[in-house]
């Protein structure tokens, strides 16, 4: 998924705007204390779970365009593997699930300012996110793989030398690709989203696309595409749910319910529905 | 009818009018002549409230418009009186300044209807009458941009007359016109003079001034240098300065 290029620009912009607006009130530092939350220790009395239970709803923030984890269906309903799991978690907690589309570039602000209670949308774990949020245990593995057209001469990763590879801009896939040994021998064309990349590949703009295996398999299965997945992967990454730094009780509760679902087979059932097998890694 | 005493005016450091005195009697036609930058137009603009005079006294139709207090500061009449005075005076501009978005008829009826509250029908009848006098009845529905300069100026005279002013001011009414069109305007002004209209005309048309004016005022550098009958100013007894000016003027 995308990293936050916009975030830093935004934080600076807001800080500047607010300082200008409040210049008369005196000087102050505004944005730093709120954007990251790194220095905040969990509150002495953590009422995060009680608040959710009192309000009887959990607001789940998502980008809503990441099939099959969380996306928008033909009728504009938000569906997906993450959504099914979250719905079951909320049912077991006796609360309502509210699906709130957000701008993925400003997800940390939405979370920390209380617009949403958690980010749950196939979010890859990385160091920055681990620092900015209170992450759940990883619940799924995702591999970064190469997809080529079915008719391609490219049959393995070593065949990619001298070829053009498409990758989503600002994604973890791009970071991984750029850090790999392969990078020196290939031409990379970055583009806004994976669907466009796959379309471009079909049209011959590129020879392969480097993307999340979860997305690739879902596209191939649901659209009957004649694609070939090259054997092997560059690096595996893991998905987790993001909570506010201070919301330890809420995070632990959701984690406990997930473990319970893993134990009684519900998680496997949902995974089967979307992926044809139990791909979850919850303990 | 109009009395101006010790009028002065300056823009920042530049003195434009100095100690101007002159009077206009009822039915009198006064021509104001003089070189460019002599303050003729500013004088007219002060009397018509387009500029604020810096000192002195102005009375229009027996009503005081402004005077100077003991401290030498100008004191103007209250807004209501100023408005009353404004309606007694009419002003015709060098550039006509017709309203381009209104028909000729509407240009003439708008002020009587809106400012005086005259019924539109009545205002229209009067406007048509004035247009007839200007020989422009057929242009009632035309827009200013469709008229020649001379026609536009005649409309603007009709517009000023529609408010039935007691005194009419002209600020170089023919300066923006082609020479062949000035005649039609001068003819209209002459007719008004014959009807006994009180008028003050700032002009560069010397022969016209001589012809139509009862009194001619010669201004230079913000002061009235000489005033008198046309025969006096355009005759041999005029001061050297006036003679010099007229001589140079006729060479053009």
């Amino acid at each position, binding site marked *: 998924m995308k990293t936050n290029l916009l975030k830093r620009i935004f934080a600076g912009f807001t800080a500047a705007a607010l300082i200008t607006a409040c210049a008369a009130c005196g000087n102050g530092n505004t944005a730093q204390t709120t954007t990251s939350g790194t220095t905040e220790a969990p509150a002495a009395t953590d009422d995060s779970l009680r608040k959710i239970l009192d309000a009887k709803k959990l607001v789940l923030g998502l980008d809503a365009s990441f099939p099959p984890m969380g996306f928008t269906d033909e009728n504009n309903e938000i569906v997906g593997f993450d959504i099914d799991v979250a719905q079951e978690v909320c049912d077991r907690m006796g609360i309502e699930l509210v699906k709130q589309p957000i701008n993925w570039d400003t997800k940390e602000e939405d979370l920390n300012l209380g617009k949403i209670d958690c980010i749950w949308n196939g979010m890859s774990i990385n160091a920055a996110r681990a620092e900015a949020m209170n992450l759940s245990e990883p619940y799924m593995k995702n591999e970064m793989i190469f997809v080529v057209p079915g008719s391609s001469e490219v049959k393995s990763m070593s065949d990619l030398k001298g070829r053009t590879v498409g990758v989503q801009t600002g994604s973890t896939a791009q970071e991984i690709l750029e850090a790999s040994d392969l990078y020196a021998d290939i031409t990379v064309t970055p583009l806004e989203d994976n669907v466009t990349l796959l379309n471009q590949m079909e049209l011959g703009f590129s020879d392969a696309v480097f993307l999340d295996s979860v997305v690739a398999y879902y596209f191939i299965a649901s659209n009957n595409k004649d694609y070939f997945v090259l054997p092997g992967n560059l690096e595996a990454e893991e998905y987790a749910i993001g909570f506010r730094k201070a919301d330890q009780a809420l995070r632990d509760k959701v984690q406990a319910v997930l473990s319970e679902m893993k134990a009684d087979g519900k998680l496997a059932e949902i995974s089967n529905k979307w992926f044809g097998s139990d791909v979850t890694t919850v303990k | 009818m109009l009395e101006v005493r010790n009028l002065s005016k300056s823009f920042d450091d530049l003195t434009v009018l100095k100690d101007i005195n002159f009077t206009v009697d009822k039915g009198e036609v006064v021509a104001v002549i003089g070189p460019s930058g002599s303050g003729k137009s500013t004088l007219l603009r002060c009397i018509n409230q387009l500029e604020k005079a810096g000192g002195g006294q102005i009375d229009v139709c027996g009503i005081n418009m402004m005077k100077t207090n003991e401290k030498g500061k100008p004191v103007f009449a209250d807004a209501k009186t100023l408005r009353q005075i404004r*309606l007694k005076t009419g002003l015709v501009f060098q550039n006509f300044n017709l309203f381009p978005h209104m028909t000729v008829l509407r240009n003439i009826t708008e002020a009587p209807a809106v400012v005086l509250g005259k019924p539109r029908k009545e205002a229209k009848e009067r406007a048509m009458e004035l247009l007839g006098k200007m020989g422009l009845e057929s*242009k009632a529905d035309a827009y200013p941009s469709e008229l020649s300069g001379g026609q536009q100026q005649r409309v603007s005279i009709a517009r000023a007359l529609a408010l039935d002013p007691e005194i009419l001011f002209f600020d170089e009414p023919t300066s923006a016109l082609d020479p062949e069109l000035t005649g039609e305007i001068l003819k209209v002004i002459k007719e008004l003079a014959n009807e006994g209209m009180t008028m003050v005309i700032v002009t560069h048309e010397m022969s016209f001034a001589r012809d139509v004016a009862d009194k001619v005022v010669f201004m230079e550098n913000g002061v009235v240098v000489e005033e008198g009958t046309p025969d006096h100013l355009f005759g041999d007894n005029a001061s050297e300065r006036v003679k010099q000016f007229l001589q140079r003027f006729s060479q053009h």
Partner: protein
Amino acid sequence: MTGEQIETLFGLMLEYTIPTLKIFGYTLLYSIPLGMIVALLKMCRFKPVSWITNVYILIMRGTPLLLQLIVAQYSVPYIVKSDICPGFLRDMLGGVDIRSEAYTFNMMLIAFVLNYAAYFAEIFRGGIESIPKGQYEAAVALGFGRIQTFFRIILPQVIRRVLPASSNEIITLVKDTSLASAIPYMEIMYIAKKQVPTYASLLPLFMAGLFYFAFAMVLTLLLSLIEKSLDPMWRRSVKTFGKGIFSRGDA
């Protein structure tokens, strides 16, 4: 994509033209009068007012509307959280439910209105300043009051002069409403973007393009008609035509 899918998609987009029209309509409704006020403030002879107005216009025109939309969304919670927020303001804003749809919509609208008002203000100012001084003087000499002069003499001329430039802004606004999708607010572009991965096809984006195009086309026709109707000579020719009189050849 199958015909049935296209039909479903079309229906969905048609449904979400209403939010798009809502942004468009409300933005115009508020930004045009506000633009007029801002234009007058900018021309204010009391310099500090004019300066502040200048700064406002500079910021609005000098930063991307997309950023303004995002800043507006986060302004309230950031102000409430900041150390320098005065108590009364915190009390006032603390009660705002930032999760509500009304909040999202209103803050978005504020950003749109403030942005467009700045552009309209500059257009209007240009229009007002282009009216020759003689028009004011003629009005004064004829005894019109300040208000009468503005509304009867100046404004009708200003409207005619600013209409072409304003039409440009209005057409631009049609397309700028799509920036709301980034907040996100559910309108045509949001739907299109979210349906791209769903169908694994770029068709939703093309379809959205057609919607904007159709909207802009209708507006273009409408605006050119308004422009013509404000041309007095065109209006008269229509009237004359209606009466069946062709004889006024000299007019």
